[in-house]
């Protein structure tokens, strides 16, 4: 765990905007708390809601060095990343509620959220499923000479998926402008990382494939941002990279999981690795903000995120008429509903 001196040393950091990073993290934290509330109020679409509380530094720190036009994919625990890339929390929450006003018109939900405008090529309910897409996006960026990068965010559990290694190999071979960001929250559902692999120093694998690779302590959002800055700059020049952000999953895997498989002491220690609290302390310590200012900011964020729930509840589910839409492109005929087909057949018979 980073010690107080680290905070001090960090005050000399030139390229990070800690107030801004704090704000982003605090918005994520609060948004996720509201997602939990949406579920408790029975207003979420299902219970497959994976909160990124404890991992805010990965999202805020890394995304601080992404640009407009950069693309990315996320995993099932990707709300924070999307927010950090500029998502509208109302449309996000509406999607999580399965409402038509959501980013994906209520068809995708928490695990299938995307926005092409913001370069979000999609969250994924398949562990590792979104990773190879950044290879293609990286090829496209190079092909079109955009200078943009493509980033895959995923959990430590995805290191079990072979497609990660296939993708890393391609990125290194083709020197693509790609970054792999592994958010190591120590768990894949109930499995602790050391129960899923014999060598939990995950970045060594990336290194063996020829990528620039390192691990950073997710307690310190500035450290994440600094690593991101370095790796992103390299990636833009064709040196793909792999970054592990070490953190702790504060709560259960999904909304209903109470984490019976880990003990209270571990959880308590784990939750001390709180990047939001750490950043807040650093802001105060370094005199970058005073308590009153931060309280005001927090209150403003609370209000913003409270509103997402009201917004979502007020929205409607997608009408049944949209069910057959978007299976294929709009100019193509929609698939024939079973009911229509049956009626046609039996009318004929």
């Amino acid at each position, binding site marked *: 765990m980073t010690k107080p001196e680290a905070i001090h040393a960090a005050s000399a950091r030139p390229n990070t905007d800690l107030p801004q990073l704090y704000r982003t993290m605090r918005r994520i934290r609060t948004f996720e708390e509201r997602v939990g509330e949406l579920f408790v109020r029975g207003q979420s679409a299902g219970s497959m809601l994976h909160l990124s509380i404890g991992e805010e530094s990965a999202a805020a720190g890394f995304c601080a060095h992404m640009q407009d036009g950069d693309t990315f994919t996320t995993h099932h625990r990707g709300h924070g990343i999307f927010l950090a890339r500029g998502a509208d929390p109302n449309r996000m929450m509406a999607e999580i509620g399965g409402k038509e006003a959501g980013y994906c018109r209520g068809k995708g939900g928490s695990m299938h959220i995307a926005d092409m405008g913001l370069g979000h090529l999609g969250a994924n309910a398949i562990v590792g499923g979104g990773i190879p897409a950044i290879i293609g996006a990286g090829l496209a960026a190079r092909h079109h000479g955009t200078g943009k990068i493509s980033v895959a965010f995923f959990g430590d559990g995805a290191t079990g998926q072979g497609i990660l290694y296939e993708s890393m190999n391609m990125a290194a071979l083709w020197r693509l402008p790609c970054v792999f960001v592994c958010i190591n929250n120590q768990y894949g559902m109930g499995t602790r990382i050391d129960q899923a692999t014999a060598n939990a120093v995950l970045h060594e694998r990336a290194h063996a494939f020829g990528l620039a690779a390192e691990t950073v302590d997710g307690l310190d959002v500035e450290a994440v941002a600094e690593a991101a800055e370095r790796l992103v700059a390299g990636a833009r020049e064709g040196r793909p990279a792999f970054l592990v952000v070490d953190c702790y999953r504060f709560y259960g895997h999904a909304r209903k999981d109470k984490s019976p498989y880990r003990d209270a002491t571990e959880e308590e220690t784990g939750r001390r690795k709180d990047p939001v609290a750490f950043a807040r302390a650093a802001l105060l310590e370094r005199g970058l903000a005073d308590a009153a200012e931060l309280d005001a900011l927090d209150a403003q964020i609370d209000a913003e995120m409270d509103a997402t729930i009201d917004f979502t509840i007020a929205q409607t589910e997608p009408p049944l008429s949209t069910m057959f839409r978007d299976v294929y492109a709009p100019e193509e005929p929609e698939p024939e509903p*079973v009911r229509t087909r*049956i009626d046609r057949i*039996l009318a004929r018979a």
Partner: protein
Amino acid sequence: MALQELTYRDALRQALIDSMRENPDVIIMGEEVGRYGGAYAVTKELIKEFGAERVIDTPISEPAIIGAAVGAAMAGLRPVAELMYVDFIGMTMDQLGNQAAKIRYMFGGQIGVPMVLRTQGGTGRSAGAQHSQSLEAYVMHTPGLRLAMPATVSDAYHLLRMALTKPDPVVFIEHKALYTMKETVDLDAEPLAWGKSAVRREGKDLVIVTYSRQLHYVMEAAKKLSTDGIEATVIDLRTLNPLDFDTIREHVERAGRAMVVSESVMTAGVAAELSARITEECFDYLEDPVVRVAGEDIPISVSTALETGSVPGPQLILETARKLLGARVAA
């Protein structure tokens, strides 16, 4: 033995326990099957009785999980590989379809692959397009793979028990919406044989062939039809490979009308096979075309209304049956 009230989940769990007690070569491997007890709690606390060497928590590596089960089966174990969602079968189709299914044949009969792939599918939890599918048609279309899909608590127990004695790979697909379903069962009563379908209800007007969760919707519809004076025979396939076509033929020849109901996507799905086969074999007895009531040809939404609308339900089954009989009555 005694009658007892069991859930579908408990019956599956009991089948695993009984098989593991009986045969020390039965092992379970999959994500979260051990300490966590299974994403749907089917393997809850099994690790306590059988230990981590027989209830093996794996990394999130579906292709290798299935591949490892293939090797384990060839090397003398009786692995149960759990795939948390049937939706993940896509990444395992090489190990399943090119290896497990073909090894006996390619190697000239030297060895089989007596493994069970346990998984669950279907809609019902707003789990979205990648966690709600019914992908049994991929399996049914792959020669060499057996396919069991229990609809009842009793079958959950017995089919899994039997699957664990079969010489060939069995894909065993549970339905996520059935885990909490209860039934009063006597697990010691002689079960229907493996590969035999169950006639859940007999009626002269119409045969409805179905399996898994849709059985319950069909039974619900059949009850309502009965108040209309329409009596349906309901056949629950239990196993799709082997497929007990004799029972279907016998009843369809008698009734002259058939419907098939499946949650899997209609096009080139299970319902297509059943419809084609019934038509081929019972053509001269059919008064009407076999009607397919199946999953829509679309992905599944997270929105509850759209999710529910994507697969057959009691109302659609009921209306279709009415129309099927009404069409002729009117004509």
